[in-house]
């Protein structure tokens, strides 16, 4: 595999061809905010939060492979504003009740809102009518909190077909659709994996919760991205 040199925020790094910008940045201790992206899962740029300036153009860092002499700027006031706006859009689009959510403190959306100092969304709340699907014996899908990132669709059930999870409908009505037949004998491990795959509280494992009290959870103690940035500081 051949190597390329790319510049991120003014510093040069070497990377393997085919690697995505977001992964190269992470490995080098540079945090690019993401939501729909997940390490090891085929990327699909849909949340657009990882938008960076790549060779002067706004591009999604999770789906842009590196190329030789590429120049990446991961953050500036404008990019931060774009990301903040996307977070606000998501809060307005769904029904998110952080204080009572099992994922509070472990939720990427909430953590990004804190990181970007979102106190209230600039957008009108849509308050869509969405349901809770509790048919599966092990997991509960609360569509109110779903941000349509497709992580469960891409990660659960292996790659390809037949799919366990998929999208249904389109546009602002799009929702995750779970195949109840194929997931009827979900094990505890699968349920845990599904819950861990969801960046928010839309997939919850049944009969268990609040193991770690709110206040002592991952993002309660430090902002999202800190882990990566701490590594970066050591380099």
């Amino acid at each position, binding site marked *: 595999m051949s190597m390329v040199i790319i510049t991120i925020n003014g510093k040069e790094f070497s990377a393997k061809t085919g690697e995505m910008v977001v992964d190269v940045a992470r490995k080098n201790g540079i945090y690019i905010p993401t939501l729909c992206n997940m390490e090891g899962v085929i990327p699909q740029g849909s949340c657009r939060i990882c938008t960076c300036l790549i060779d002067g153009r706004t591009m999604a860092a999770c789906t842009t492979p590196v190329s030789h002499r590429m120049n990446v700027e991961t953050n500036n006031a404008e990019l931060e504003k774009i990301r903040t706006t996307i977070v606000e*859009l998501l809060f307005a689009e769904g029904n998110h009740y952080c204080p009572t959510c099992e994922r509070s403190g472990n939720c990427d959306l909430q953590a990004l809102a804190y990181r970007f100092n979102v106190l209230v969304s600039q957008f009108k709340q849509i308050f869509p009518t969405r349901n809770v699907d509790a048919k599966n014996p092990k997991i509960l899908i609360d569509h109110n909190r779903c941000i349509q990132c497709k992580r469960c669709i891409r990660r659960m059930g292996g790659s390809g077909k037949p799919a366990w999870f*998929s999208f249904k409908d389109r546009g602002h009505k799009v929702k995750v*659709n779970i195949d109840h037949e194929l997931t009827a004998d979900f094990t505890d491990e699968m349920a845990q994996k599904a819950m861990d795959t969801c960046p928010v509280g839309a997939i919850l494992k049944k009969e268990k919760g609040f193991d770690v009290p709110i206040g002592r959870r991952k993002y309660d103690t430090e902002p999202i991205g800190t882990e990566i940035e701490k590594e970066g500081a050591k380099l």
Partner: protein
Amino acid sequence: MDNHKSQKSFVADGNHCSCDCSSLHTILAKYDNDSSRLMDILIAVQEKAGCIQEKAVKEIAKALNLSKVDVEQTLSFYHFFSDGAKADYAVYLNDSVVAEMMGREDIAKTFEEEVGVTFGKISEDGKIGLFNTSCIGMNDQEPAAIINQRVFTKLTPEKVRKIVIEMKNGKSIDDIVGSNVENNIKKQGPILTKDIEVGEGLKKAVEMKPETLIEEVRQSNLRGRGGAGFPTAMKWKFCREAAGDKHFVMCNADEGEPGTFKDRVILTERPEMVFEGMAIAGYAIGAEEGILYLRYEYKYMQSFLENVLQEMRSKKLLGENIFGKFNFDIRIQFGGGAYVCGEESALIESAEGKRGEPRDRPPFPVVKGYMQQPTSVNNVETLSAVVKIINKGAKWYRSLGTIDSTGTKLMSISGDCEKPGVYEMEWGFTVNDILQMVGAKDVQAVQIGGPSGNCVNPAQFNRKVAYEDLSTGGAIIIIGKERDLLKDVVLNFTNFFIEESCGSCVPCRAMTVQYRNRLEKILRGNGVAKDIEAMLEWEKVMKTNRCGLGHSAANPILTTIQNFRELYDAKLQKDTDYVSEFNLEAAVQESCKAAGRQPNLGGE
């Protein structure tokens, strides 16, 4: 207004579809139980049974080795598929801007009165369903509706009454009078003129080496006519050079941009030329298979086009050993009703039997397209132009138009004018030229390039229509002085994008809705200057979207803020930067009603 178009679950009790097992198995066998042909399978079942019920979904999933949700994700994406109840006659009435201008409201009212249900519903006896649909490519003959794949144009209340009576009587759709599509070619130029024999271009093409052929196209400076304007020769070169087991040519006949109908006219008037252009493209890039992706709205053309293909095969212009040089054949792939499928990577996804979600790029379709193989997607008009270029030479083609925009452009012109129709024009004409030509008076605005384009004001009517100035895929909508531009046009277009977003990208899916909310707030008289600033600011977020739909979905609002700012300003509240839209009286109405009290807002 946003819930009317979604097809599914239009619950009408008791009308369940019936696709018996034997016909389902015949359909599945016809497509070799191949999951990449899921679109064709769903279309066949939908047409046979009037809907695609859960039972059929399960059978299809089993046969194709898919899960139920796999089938549902495709099924639910397209608005001509129904998973709920069926109607013997499904009436899809266009609700685009020009349909409204031409009197759609009366037509809709007449349908509702005669059928006895409102739009979005099916009559109790299960006979007739009324649905709205986005532009069906008939802007020059609106109001128009599609009923069971047949198109009924220039509807009047009387016509509607007759049609409803005949539907109630159970007449076969082909026997119902009034189904008629006009071609309305108002100006014929070098592309539309029939001055060469079918097959001449292809014959000349195969006498050249593919590289020489591509060079000839490069010399002509031909750029894609689908809207993006990418140089055709360059696309072919990249595609030819890309490694793959097979290469594919796809002709984009999705024509979904509201106001565009020129590809329909080319396909009815000169279908041989389009297929010949596909074959030439096939020879150039080294493909043996071509796919014509045709929007479902044009389903009525199917047998006509299949006959043309058959004839060309019998003349050995398609099939094996064409002019002793190469093999090439074409199949027609229908869509299912989704504007975004005109975007080339969404078109490919759809042709593979999937949801029409645009792909992330890179890789580009020329490298990894249909079935992950190098694919050249070209517009109908682009491929037609190629035939003439090969025949008459690049030099001849370059002599037409401007330096940056060579050749001619087919314009679909509609709206407030005397002579709507298709005009083939040499590039470089001005907006004023058009207005004169089509007999348009008292013009308030001209929408260039459909909703995703630019809405220009009279001070800009001397601008040139060409890639170097006002670029367009060919749609021109003329908006008269008497129209309420913001409400009748901009709001309608914004709703169109909300309906048609594939839903993947957050800004496209959610911001379009917020744009509408803000526009409606302004239309209610509750807007403030800050709302305009915010809408302008959001453009940066829209530009982060994955595909062109998301990039341009705010254009109706953004270009009118730019060119018709006074219309917005007139509606804004002055000297304040906050208007509460909260209405206490309305908010307590329900609870007061429940408690049997009068609202007492005075606090006494």
